């Protein structure tokens, strides 16, 4: 915060807009074809927290820069432009076939390269988890990669002042207020904030805004440490549990009925 500007980077992920997703039969990962993708709702809350901090600081005349950064397919740029329409200052998209198939570790490495590209960052905000992967690993892994303190499951912001973040976080059976020195990483719960809608001015301004696009070599990535090649996790199989139900009437004596039930249970095993 040397020049007085607080720089917040918000990591966002494009997720399918519906639960009707296609899986790649080879890699067992979600096919991301950009059809009706939305910003992960947890990341949307993280963005709103960042914009709220910027608003509060603007009211006292101090500047804030809110960058959004994502690793995704090229069409993710339109989601990042939508983040700019809602108030983000700038956006960076890491996109390359070499990034595809990444697990959380390889994703973290790519995002860390993106954050490095943004220059000095005071606060990195992520959604607590993504609604498609549900791992909740990216934020803490990023903190590890960047060697920064990390608060997880932020339910609300108490204060973001010079050099420190105070936040209410979820703990077993309740919440607690924690304070972290900046720079830091925090992951945000969905209920922490509701992302504002863009204004007409925001939508029109975002149309002319540039989303910086970086491929793997531009980001300086080691091909062995990103994408499928850099992912120690292997998804062996993933599937949508099939819901089946049926009913059968069982008659006869109590003994016969008990035998029929035992038979059904046996067949289910």
């Amino acid at each position, binding site marked *: 915060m040397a020049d007085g500007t607080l720089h917040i980077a918000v990591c966002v992920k494009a997720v399918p807009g519906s639960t009707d997703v296609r899986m790649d039969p080879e890699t067992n990962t979600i096919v991301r074809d950009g059809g009706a993708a939305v910003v992960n709702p947890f990341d949307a809350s993280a963005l709103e927290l960042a914009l709220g901090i910027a608003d509060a600081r603007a009211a006292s005349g101090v500047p804030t820069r809110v960058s959004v950064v994502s690793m995704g397919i090229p069409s993710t740029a339109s989601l990042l432009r939508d983040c700019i329409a809602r108030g983000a200052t700038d956006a960076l998209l890491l996109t390359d076939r070499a990034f595809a198939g990444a697990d959380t570790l390889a994703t973290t490495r790519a995002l860390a390269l993106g954050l490095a590209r943004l220059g000095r960052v005071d606060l990195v905000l992520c959604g607590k988890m993504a609604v498609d992967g549900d791992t909740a690993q990216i934020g803490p892994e990023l903190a590890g990669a960047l060697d920064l303190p990390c608060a997880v499951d932020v339910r609300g912001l108490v204060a973001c002042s010079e050099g420190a973040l105070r936040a209410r976080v979820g703990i077993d059976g309740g919440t607690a207020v924690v304070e972290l020195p900046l720079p830091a990483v925090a992951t945000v719960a969905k209920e922490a904030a*509701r*992302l504002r*809608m*863009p204004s*007409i001015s925001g*939508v*029109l301004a975002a149309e002319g805004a540039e989303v910086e696009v970086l491929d793997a070599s531009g980001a300086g990535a080691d091909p062995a440490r990103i994408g499928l090649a850099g992912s120690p996790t292997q998804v062996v199989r993933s599937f949508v549990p099939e819901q089946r139900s049926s009913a059968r009437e069982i008659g006869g004596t109590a003994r016969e009925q008990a035998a029929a039930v035992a038979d059904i249970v046996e067949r289910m095993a």
Partner: protein
Amino acid sequence: MQPAQEAVPRAEGLIRPLTADLDGYRRDESRSTGEAETISFPESEEEVRAILRALHADGVPVTVQGARTGLAAGAVPHGGHVMNLSRMNRYLGLRRDGSGAFFLTVEPGVVLSDLRKRLKARDVPSDGWDDASLRALRELADAPEQMFPTDPTESSACIGGMTACNASGARSYRYGPMRPHVTALRLVLADGDVLAMRRGEVRARGRSLALRTVSGREISLELPTYEMPRCKNASGYYVEDDMDAIDLVIGSDGTLGVLTRIELALTPAPAVTWGVSTFYASERSALDATERLRAELADAAALEYFDGAALDILRRQRDSSAAFSSLAEPPAGARACVYVELQCTDEAAALADVRRIAGVLRAVGSDADGTWVARTEVDREALQFFRHAVPESVNMLIDERRRADPSITKLGSDMAVPDERLHDVVELYRRTLAEAGLESAAWGHIGNNHLHVNILPRDAGDYARGKELFAGWAREVTRMGGAVSAEHGVGKLKRGFLETMYGPEHLREMARAKLALDPLGQLGRGNLFDETYLEGGERHG
């Protein structure tokens, strides 16, 4: 589509006493209550016919009900029998014409929300459909998504009720009311005979109409001679020279027959839907903006309004109720809001419209920063929550006041005027409300100059003054060339206004037209006009 060999149902088993456990069927969403001795829940046209034949012998009054979501008490019984059609809720068939358009035939009890859900999922129940319908259904699966455009706020409304009152909704600004989307129907008359009507097949000659029932009976009737207002209108029978016969039935408030089958024209769903909420420091700016938006936006599907009092109610709800805490917060100082829904072929067209809206805001001295643009499903839902929270909050407020004084209830207007009278009618509302010292909140379909001005009575005196005010508005709106009911229908609550709008002589003409189809005046008694207009028929003539 009943099997031909099905036995003729016997009415005796279908008509039952309206006992205390069925009390709910004496009421509808208008919060008024009526009386009836018997009730039936027919499940087929044959059952409807059997019941009506049995009741016709004694001239028993019959009130037809659907989902009972109407706001004008059209479904509230007026003695006699209640015929509730909610169990006639089957999807009967699908047709595709040469131009590729789809037409879905349903029973009257099909609920709008179910219809929407099934069209969206392309999952229409097709049990018992013929080959042509099944072929059309297969084509629907591969065609661009289809929708049914009429969108009353209450999506639990049923198609029969929506047809009977010629329902509208926010998107009627673009798509009109039910009328243009109903292409065929079957109507069982009070004596059990049936009229099968298809748009384009039977037209009046001037104001004379000749109909033929499926049994071959000829019915001639003279249509009323009034001219309808040139604005959104759901007041009384639709009549004009050389009109299509089907249009007489749509919007007839259950007074001519019982709808048993309705064919709906489907519409391709728009590729891009964006919602834009704009805010103004004064009502005048909002009205000026509305006139400009109407002129400049070809792709607007809806133009909706919320006045400062409505915004204040939402601000209070947001702060005081957990259920409303996620409401978006209107900008400080906003005293009016105009919501525009854009339906466009692509995002570039929507963006061009957003630029036009920005231009309009500049022209009326308003701010493009303090606006909301909903482009995602989450944001569209947030705006819908905002819009629906207004009537819901007002109902809650009235319920609270009713606890102190049970005699009061909400008073909501439903009048519309031609475009050029928008400023005049709002000036009328504001001046007379201020003179009467009444609290109010106004919202609604400003694109059609159709505001629901809701009086929020604090006590019985306010309520009485409010009713008086509405009667005065009915006279003034009629002078402006407007309609006393633009979308809720006249039902039983607004028949006094209809008398103001058309005068007793035209009401007598309406009664005569009704009696040509329902000679004993059994159906929908008390709807549209007082039943004294029916007595003896000719006595009034």
